[in-house]
């Protein structure tokens, strides 16, 4: 009962899109702060490219988890303190679709 309520609420959160203002902030974050490692056009730098062609076979959930928790042992830092699950999911989908 509790578990399904929890599951439902995470589902609801994961579905909620960030509001337009927040989307704008997240795009800024993506271009500039993620861009310092992945390149301003996300074609890669110290971090790998984040383009539809390189991400198409990676599930959005997996990418969202990478964004939230980082990859220990690599320079990819956890962005959990700054983006929620729903926002990480939104970013992951945006990356898979292509940012432009």
């Amino acid at each position, binding site marked *: 009962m509790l578990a399904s309520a929890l599951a439902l609420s995470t589902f609801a959160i994961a579905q909620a899109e960030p509001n337009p203002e927040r989307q704008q902030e997240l795009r*800024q974050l993506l*271009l500039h*702060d993620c861009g*310092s490692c992945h*390149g*301003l*056009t996300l*074609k890669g*730098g110290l971090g790998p490219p984040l383009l539809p062609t390189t991400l198409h076979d990676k599930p959005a959930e997996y990418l969202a988890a990478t964004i939230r928790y980082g990859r220990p042992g690599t*320079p990819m830092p956890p962005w959990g303190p700054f983006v929620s699950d729903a926002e990480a999911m939104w970013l992951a989908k945006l990356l898979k679709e292509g940012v432009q």
Partner: protein
Amino acid sequence: MTRIRPILTALLLGLTAVGHAETRATGDLGLVIERADGGLKMIETSGNTVLSSIEGLGDLSHASAVFSRDERFAYIFGRDGGLTKVDMLQGKIAKRIVQSGNSIGGAISQDGRLVAVSNYEPGGVRIFDADTLESVADLPADYGDGKLSKVVGLVDAPGNRFVYSLWDAGEIRIADMSDLANPKVRKFENIGKQPYDALITPDGRYYIAGLFGEDGLALLDLWQPDQGVRRILPDYGRNDEKMPVYKMPHLEGWAMAGDRAFVPAVGRNQVLIVNSNDWSEAGRLEVSGQPVFVMARPDGRQVWINFAFPNNDRIEVFDTLTLERITTLHPGKGVLHMEFEPRGEEVWVSVRDDDQLQIYDTATLKQVKTMPARKPSGIFLTHRAHKIGL
């Protein structure tokens, strides 16, 4: 003299022909990278003004610049592998090539004839004729069984050499370009995990690479390379837990003040102080974020520090004699770079999210001017032309 005069006259005529009513020198000029738009602002530090904008330079995230020895030309290294030569007098692109898929920085040789570019993809260093931008040499960053490494921390060194580090391989290499037809590359292996950037001391003697994958820095004495690479500050963070790093620190502007050097710590809210006589730790500055650039005012009396996300809205200024914090400035969000004027009385600051360039008086620590610029990042003044490693 008789040979020179016609050339001079022709030059002067040429300049007037393109609309320069008066002759101009380049010693007080500079460029600001406008990273989002692939453009540059040409600036001038005598009157603190923006002279013009230059467009069409591609992806300029993380872009940097070096200058020809006559300070006439700038070479801009862009993220997309673009190498652009800009004419500082005419305020326009003189030549542009795209030399690789993904580059990270560059350097100009001691004799001014060669421009070197370090690449992430495919890793390696490519060397070009500074005049024509024609390819002169290719130094692949291969290691192990034919793997390719990202190259970081490329600098010029006396003896027409370039020195650089291999992120994936944990190596430092010296490329001696004194015989162009036959570049000699010397490798130093096992210098530490993941060198992320490097610097050369202003006298050109020590090359120091910062390590991301472990604590400490790797030091190579270029006067005595046979002694090999040694680790300095090997355990500066041994007992504390490392925080995640949201932006890699830069070592290029490494601050030397007297016999103290100030270096950003990786993943810590600290600046490390190193005694440059024996390279031992001489203390730390506690700061309010992870430092990115730690820059000394040219006289060495102050260091100015900016920070990684999410603390990239401030600059802390320290007195290098007392090691006290003099002030914390709040220029705005996204403080990306600081560049001192040649004698240090003023400093230019780029504030990305506010689309501003700001100038501060370093004696009063007051802002003296702001100017609009589109997502400005690196600021490069022409006096770098005459500095080893810049």
